[in-house]
């Protein structure tokens, strides 16, 4: 009985993994072929294996700078998001204060604004501030959807930690900053890992705002990729290679936080 149940589960899992991997395989497959080959014939693997697309990306600064720019603003954004979300999440999980529930829901509503709505106002705001085409501009704009998410996730983790721990620490004479950094933070490591992964991911893949707020110096890889669309047709192979490379940093991040996710979190309140 258990044996058969186990097998049914594995079949489902393998079927899903196939469904998940096939489009990615197709992208990787395309990245090793030339444009003519992609468009002229159907083939399950590259007939004339070529690294030309990868060579283009790694030798052309306007391509690889895109990755560097993206990594810079994603890193700034993740650090700020987690930095401001930690104390706020602590406040929401530990205290009642005037308007707490409303502020919590208001934060979530910021995740509900379509980025398309904010394109023009953001453009004007950052032009006025002289922040256009800087990494910090994109990082700040992405706070709009990452900070609420980080507060939400961290609050769930913190509510799972019994309040007695705080009280004992205060009785032992810890001040708030010292207690927070040396006692509390290690307890919610997992939450910080998971929240950081989600912030990284949402900032990494966002296109509309990042493209609008940058032109040359901070141009992210997602915007650079739109260059492959031109009047002479699509440069499918280079786009596929660039796409394959965009997965790499995220895959590294998830590798580091995998234990935190596997450790689990249930979310207390919400």
């Amino acid at each position, binding site marked *: 009985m258990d044996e058969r149940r186990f097998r049914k589960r594995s079949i489902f899992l393998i079927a899903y993994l196939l469904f998940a991997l096939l489009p990615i395989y197709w992208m990787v497959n395309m990245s090793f072929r030339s444009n003519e080959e992609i468009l002229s014939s159907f083939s399950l693997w590259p007939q004339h294996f070529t690294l030309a697309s990868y060579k283009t990306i790694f030798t052309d600064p306007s391509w690889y700078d895109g990755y560097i720019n993206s990594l810079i603003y994603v890193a700034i954004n993740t650090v700020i998001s987690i930095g*401001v979300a930690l104390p706020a999440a602590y406040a929401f999980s530990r205290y009642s204060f005037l308007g707490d529930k409303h502020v919590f829901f208001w934060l979530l509503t910021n995740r509900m604004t379509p980025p398309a709505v904010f394109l023009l106002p953001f453009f004007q705001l950052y032009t006025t501030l002289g922040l256009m085409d800087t990494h910090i501009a994109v990082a700040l704009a992405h706070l709009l959807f990452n900070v609420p998410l980080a507060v939400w996730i961290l609050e769930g983790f913190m509510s799972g930690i019994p309040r007695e721990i705080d009280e004992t620490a205060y009785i032992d004479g810890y001040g708030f900053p010292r207690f927070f950094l040396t006692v509390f933070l290690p307890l919610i490591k997992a939450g910080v890992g998971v929240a950081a992964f989600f912030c990284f991911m949402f900032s990494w893949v966002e296109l509309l705002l990042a493209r609008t707020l940058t032109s040359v110096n901070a141009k992210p890889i997602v915007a650079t990729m739109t260059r492959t669309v031109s009047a002479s047709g699509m440069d499918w192979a280079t786009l596929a290679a660039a796409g394959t490379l965009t997965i790499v940093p995220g895959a590294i991040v998830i590798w580091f936080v995998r234990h935190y996710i596997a450790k689990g979190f*249930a979310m207390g309140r919400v």
Partner: protein
Amino acid sequence: MKPINQRAWFLVLPVFLCVAFSAILPLMTVVNYSVQDIISPERRVFVGTEWFAAVLRDEELHGALLRQLGFSLAVLLVEIPLGICLALSMPAQGWRASAVLVVVALSLLIPWNVVGTIWQIYGRADIGLLGAALQALGVDYNYTGDATDAWVTVLVMDVWHWTPLVALLCFAGLRSIPDAYYQAARIDGASKFAVFRYIQLPKMRGVLMIAVLLRFMDSFMIYTEPFVLTGGGPGNATTFLSQYLTQKAVGQFDLGPAAAFSLIYFLIILLLCFILYNWMQSVGTQDKSEVAHG
């Protein structure tokens, strides 16, 4: 309960400032536009609620809204159960757990415009794996010509893209259940379904709530993927709200109506999320009293 402490506001202040900077200022600009007719940067006329009335009467908008609601509903109905099943079938420990986690998360990390482009090729009958496979099975599949095919392709693409988010959250929720619960259930001889219904599902409530709300709002704002894959076509079969809005704002340079549209759009999402949020909270509490009584 939680102690009352107004000074907690100081801890929330940084978040408040950050989000206010990137939300309230731009939102005010949008509100400002929505009540004016901007003829040129120097000449603008106050028009009151005229744009709002115009937008609400817009037949094309009603069409886009209905398509959007249908799409978001389909997304939730497919992705939430699929994500839960996937989380339940993922291995819990060892190298296989790590490997499956990374593979499952891969599709989340691909930029949205690449997702659309890859599926554009992937779905083509002559050179794409999916299109060719369906053709070989005798299905007359053509996502650029047939409205139903296009809609289904966008849905399948979204399922492929975002089910991992639901699965990762549920997986993390499941892992937090102490073994003692399962042991108790085994002693009671509880069926697999009972374990799911009375232990796993209630424990996943918090993460499921995040998953449902996130998937709802993000699918309601979907833009890049269908734009790249189908460009909204054929006809307007896959023109969802965001894309219709962008057509208006960018295509026709109609700032006033576009701003009014944006606000209405935002209010619709807000209202639906509010209903969903409260509904899910009440569902959870009912469960608890049920368990307590039973």
